């Protein structure tokens, strides 16, 4: 049986991490390490982990050091999910053959990847893993940009954001396309569990991760990861940005069970205007010029529409 951690409060949570060490090269204020600790803390079971190429990978396994006290593998940018799928397959075989060194364990298989490695270059690999039914969890550390290579747009980069390959300028407001709806796409694979999480809502996240570990089959998690460097905010404000993301409903928290049963898991008591979320980040600064203010209105309309859509789906149980 799975062994899930019972965590009472944030203090206990913050001191109980022991399989992802504090020492890493991630930026001060990076949300990646917070999310990873919250995920790893959700279980006492053994973990087989991967990271696709990106910030998390280059900052946590620089030879001869490692931040990981659980087995961990990195192959390339696109295939971290498939690496874990291969390990999960080998686990099944060795279990069947009675060749596991510790046969009584119940390991969890988790791949971490950024939005570039998930929405773009690794899209096919993740889709394959989800479709084939591996007993694994793929977690996107979604900071909506290629942060590790210096801030290029990905298909997760939202409209109006200034990225180095979709920069704002004299005649451009930056990124022209809206963010890809990856949770919906992954849920459409008919997987047992897909969810969106945010590090500020740690109880919600732990619950979802534990749900994901408890089900048999592939699980997809999209975690918003505010990026101090590319979103351009003060490193001390990471959790404030995460609060803005969830409470403006720019990142609504919900889950989709078996590809169709949608549940909203967090309803902000006071919904904050999207403008405040945009105003808190340098990547949207130019939207506050007079000629682009209509985009802020469009942003709010889009967020409202998506929220209404999620609520309709939840009500209709589809």
């Amino acid at each position, binding site marked *: 049986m799975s062994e899930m951690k019972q965590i009472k409060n944030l203090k206990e949570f913050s001191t109980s991490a022991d399989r992802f060490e504090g020492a890493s090269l991630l930026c001060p204020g990076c949300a990646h390490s917070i999310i990873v600790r919250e995920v790893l803390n959700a279980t006492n079971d053994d973990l087989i982990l991967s990271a696709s190429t990106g910030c998390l990978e280059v900052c946590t396994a620089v030879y001869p050091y490692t931040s990981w006290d659980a*087995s*961990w593998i990195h*192959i390339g940018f696109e295939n971290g999910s498939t690496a874990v799928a291969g390990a999960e397959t080998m686990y099944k*075989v060795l279990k069947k053959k009675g060749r596991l060194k510790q046969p009584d*364990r119940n390991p969890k298989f988790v791949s971490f990847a950024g939005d570039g490695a998930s929405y773009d270059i690794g899209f096919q690999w993740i889709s394959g893993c989800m479709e084939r039914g591996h007993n694994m969890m793929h977690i996107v550390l979604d900071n909506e940009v290629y942060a590790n290579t210096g801030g290029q747009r990905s298909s997760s980069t939202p409209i109006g954001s200034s990225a180095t390959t979709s920069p704002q300028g004299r005649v451009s407001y930056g990124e022209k396309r809206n963010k890809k709806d990856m949770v919906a796409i992954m849920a459409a694979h008919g997987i047992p569990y897909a969810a969106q999480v945010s590090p500020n809502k740690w109880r919600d996240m732990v619950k979802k991760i534990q749900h994901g570990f408890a089900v048999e089959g592939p699980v997809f998690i999209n975690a918003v990861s505010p990026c101090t460097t590319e979103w351009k905010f003060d490193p001390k404000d990471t959790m404030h940005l995460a609060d803005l993301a969830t409470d403006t409903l720019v990142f609504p928290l919900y889950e989709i069970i078996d590809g169709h049963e949608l549940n909203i898991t967090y309803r902000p008591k006071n919904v904050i205007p999207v403008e405040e979320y945009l105003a808190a980040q340098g990547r949207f600064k130019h939207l506050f010029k007079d000629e682009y203010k209509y985009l802020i209105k469009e942003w709010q309309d889009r967020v409202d529409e998506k929220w209404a859509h999620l609520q309709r789906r939840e009500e209709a149980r589809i």
Partner: protein
Amino acid sequence: MAFDKMELKDVEVWDGNYAAAQALRQAQVDVVAAYPITPSTPIVEGYAKFTADGYVEGEFVMVESEHAAMSACIGAAAAGGRVATATSSQGYALMVETLYQASGMRLPIVLNVVNRALAAPLNVNGDHSDMYLGRDSGWIQLDAFSPQEAYDLNLIAFKVCEDHEIRLPCMVHQDGFMTSHTAQGVNTLSDDAAYGFVGEYKPMNDMLDFEHPVTHGVQTEEDWHFEHKARQHNDLMTKVIPKIQAAFNDFEKLSGRKYNIVERYDMDDADVCVVCMGTSVETAREVALEMRAKGIKAGVVGLRVIRPFPFFEIAEALRGVKSIAVLDRSSPNGAAGMLFNEIAGALYNADTKALLSGYIYGLGGRDLTKKHLVDLFNELQANADAGKVTTKLQQFIGVRGPKLAYL
């Protein structure tokens, strides 16, 4: 054991693909992750069917691309078990990124490469373009000239690459269609004898040893990267050939079939010889015997081990030969052929005055005929008689249109 053994006849009629599939079954490979591509597909179909019929206890994972196939093989091998797959041509090209990762992470994986041309233009037939593409990838590369050898070399590959002193992945090559789809008599080993030869898989740095977590696939920059690559090269240069030779010796004791790092045919007193790979070796041997009947002392050298390149064994095999032709079955695209260059490098400081010429042949499955080889041996004899290369250094043979020759 939760699988059934297969009763094989002493001699079975198998093509190269089925012979390789049988070897994967007998080695009781734990995980095969693969993607179909002509002409290698029947190897992994064979493993899938053996699994479905209960003749092997393992998992076949049909992934969504060759890149994913090798990625899953890497994850499975790092987890700690026996892993194999197969591919060809475009699929191999797609896999190249992960080939370097498999070898750099020192993971023993056996990859059957059924050699096929590379597009464009698209072509499903055999040449060595794909085989050449992976030659710097840090894998061991063995070349089978026939279905029998495809069977034997697969068993040998596991034994060599899983050895804890080696821990490098290994490719077993065979020619697309000419070997992969041509059925011949294959001498078999019993399931027990074959598995006994390959041995139990002994994991090392396995991710599934939960008491000893490992980090695979780290970042190394200018402070460590060079040392890692140098160590891998050092093991290829110093450890692999002796280990292959030892495996060949053991295999001969078991089966009576003798393999050599470099295969020599009629080379003891040869004045002229052809160096080649794959199915062409057999054709060249037949023609060499006919040339001997005409008074030309002809011989053939076949490359059994492509990587690590057997410099000393090649120099030894070619000692005393007056005129040598090196046959490359891949478009050199602006250079001398790969094999030509390697042979030239192996001979440069050796005790030889041999004349060296190169031939490009057989691209996209074009036949290498006996007539081509008769003409070629005659050219070699003319070179030997003249004491110099009488033709251009690089010639194309078997291609239509005006004769192409360079250098």
